[in-house]
């Protein structure tokens, strides 16, 4: 079983802390194209995200995941209710720049976020925008590229990067601003297996360094890495908890177009035939570990 020093697992501690992001009865409606039909996207969402937490948001297409994540740094403002970031209301236009420094976002397509002709200039661009003094700039760029695993690519043209490296460059550009929270909206969906694995490693590293992570994903095995999984359906939160608990509810998730990681399904099936096998496993490492544990005990 992997040991995680997560805030979510320390419920008491969490209660005492101020949330980094608080969504208070947030409803949101997109205006229909013809004006007469209003399509509700979010329905009275109440949600707190704490400093250093790793949260995954899952839900079927159209459930409101992206819409919700765009509220976390004021790209969208609620139609009703409020979103507070570190105590600031995202409706306060004069605070938006501060809010966006606190909560950075990375989207599905990194090409929309990359503008400069070299990797380091791209990271520098954002820093110039927020008037970081030149003497501090180099250090920040260094740190961001190191965390994103791109140190050796500093003088390369973004054009020559792979899709996965570009996505990590988009992340470097955001983390150079030293946000308290990084929001990823399906950031791995265009990556190959290798690119995804590298990106997840970067995200874990950032989280271990204390950055809160909110990731919107369709990959259940990615959601399994988080401290807390939030399930959205028709604009409402219908389930949340640690992945080990959420992925026990296979039927509930399947009714909502979702699934559980293959490892969880296998663990459930094995448990039915061999009750001593734990059913609440969430990745392949745990499944193999459980087999070793049971066989090891048998040999004693």
């Amino acid at each position, binding site marked *: 079983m992997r040991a995680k020093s997560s805030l979510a697992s320390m419920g008491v501690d969490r209660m005492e802390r101020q949330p980094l992001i608080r969504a208070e009865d947030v409803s949101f409606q997109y205006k229909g194209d013809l004006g007469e039909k209003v399509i509700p996207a979010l329905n009275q969402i109440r949600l707190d995200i704490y400093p250093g937490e790793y949260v995954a948001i899952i839900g*079927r297409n159209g459930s409101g995941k992206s819409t919700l994540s765009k509220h976390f740094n004021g790209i969208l403002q609620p139609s009703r209710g409020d979103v507070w970031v570190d105590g600031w209301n995202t409706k306060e236009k004069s605070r938006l720049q501060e809010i966006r420094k606190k909560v950075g976002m990375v989207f599905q397509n990194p090409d929309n976020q990359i503008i400069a002709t070299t990797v380091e200039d791209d990271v520098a661009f954002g820093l110039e925008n927020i008037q970081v003094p030149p003497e501090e700039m180099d250090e920040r760029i260094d740190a961001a590229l190191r965390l994103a695993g791109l140190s050796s690519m500093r003088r390369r043209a973004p054009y020559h990067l*792979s899709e996965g490296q570009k996505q990590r460059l988009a992340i470097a550009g955001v983390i150079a601003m030293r946000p308290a929270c990084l929001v990823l909206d399906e950031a791995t969906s265009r990556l190959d297996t*290798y690119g995804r694995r590298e990106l997840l490693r970067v995200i874990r590293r950032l989280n271990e360094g204390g950055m809160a992570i909110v990731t919107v994903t369709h990959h259940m095995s990615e959601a399994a890495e988080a401290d807390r999984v939030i399930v959205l359906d028709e604009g409402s939160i219908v389930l949340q908890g640690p992945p080990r608990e959420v992925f026990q509810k296979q039927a509930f998730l399947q009714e909502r177009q979702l699934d559980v990681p293959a490892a969880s399904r296998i663990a459930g099936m094995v448990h039915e035939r061999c009750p001593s096998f734990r059913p609440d496993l969430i990745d392949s490492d745990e499944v193999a570990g459980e087999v070793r544990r049971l066989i090891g005990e048998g040999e004693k």
Partner: protein
Amino acid sequence: MAAEPIIDVQHLEHTYMKGTPFVHQALTGVSITVYSGECVAIIGHTGSGKSTLVQHFNGLILPQKGKVIVDGADLSDKKTDMKGLRQKVGLVFQDPESQIFESLVGDEIAYGPFKMGWPIKDVRDAVKGAMEMAGLPFDAMKDRPTAALSGGQKRKVALAGVLALKPKILVLDEPTAGLDPRSGMELLGRLKTLNEQEHLTIVFISHHLEEVAYLADRIYVLDHGKNIGEGSPATLFSNKKMLEKYRIGTPETVDILYRLQDAGFSVNVAHYGIAEVASQICSILEHGPRRDRYDTV
């Protein structure tokens, strides 16, 4: 499997931005054959040339060097009927947004058939049929504004737009990227039906090895613009060295089997279905360890 090749690619090369400092050779010599009625997956990490290759299938890119023959038509031949070819080969890109420009769903899907000059009733039937195949209820969805669709719905609209032209060959670039798990599974199920019952030939690019395992009869592996491997999903996923060497990764279920193998248990990696893995684990638990090292004692 019919033995008739419907796509035949021989020694294909392609260089982007020739004669500029940005010159990049995307294909360095690809030879692949797809037989009529087959479902073939093309895998390989980003930049291996997959998208460049499939854009040759309907003439979006013409061969610079080498040969591409699609349903008997040689794409190097200037007399080849490109309009006919594009109806015959439906291409669904990775970014559905880039294919959608009409403001209503029904109009979007009807665009191709209209351009083909089909009678209005045929267009309506084609749109209705295509929407059903793509999983979009005709009455509920035809008058929806495309701007209000979710990513998954847009994917279905793009697919329906291509199916409305009744292609013989369907080419998809990452068909389930961005879809929720069930919509992804539904789409794969639909593609499987189209392949098995409508005998549509399917070629798809995928990074998602679970879907490759589910859908493909055969896989081609591309690396640096060359095909470096070919075989059934079971053969390829049993080839651990190749998976590692070309950074292909492993499906989660195969990964469990490899971990058990590394721990010394004897498992069959070619049996990587979810139920198969569960039953292999059960038999290890029920019949004792049967580790390889015991077998050799």
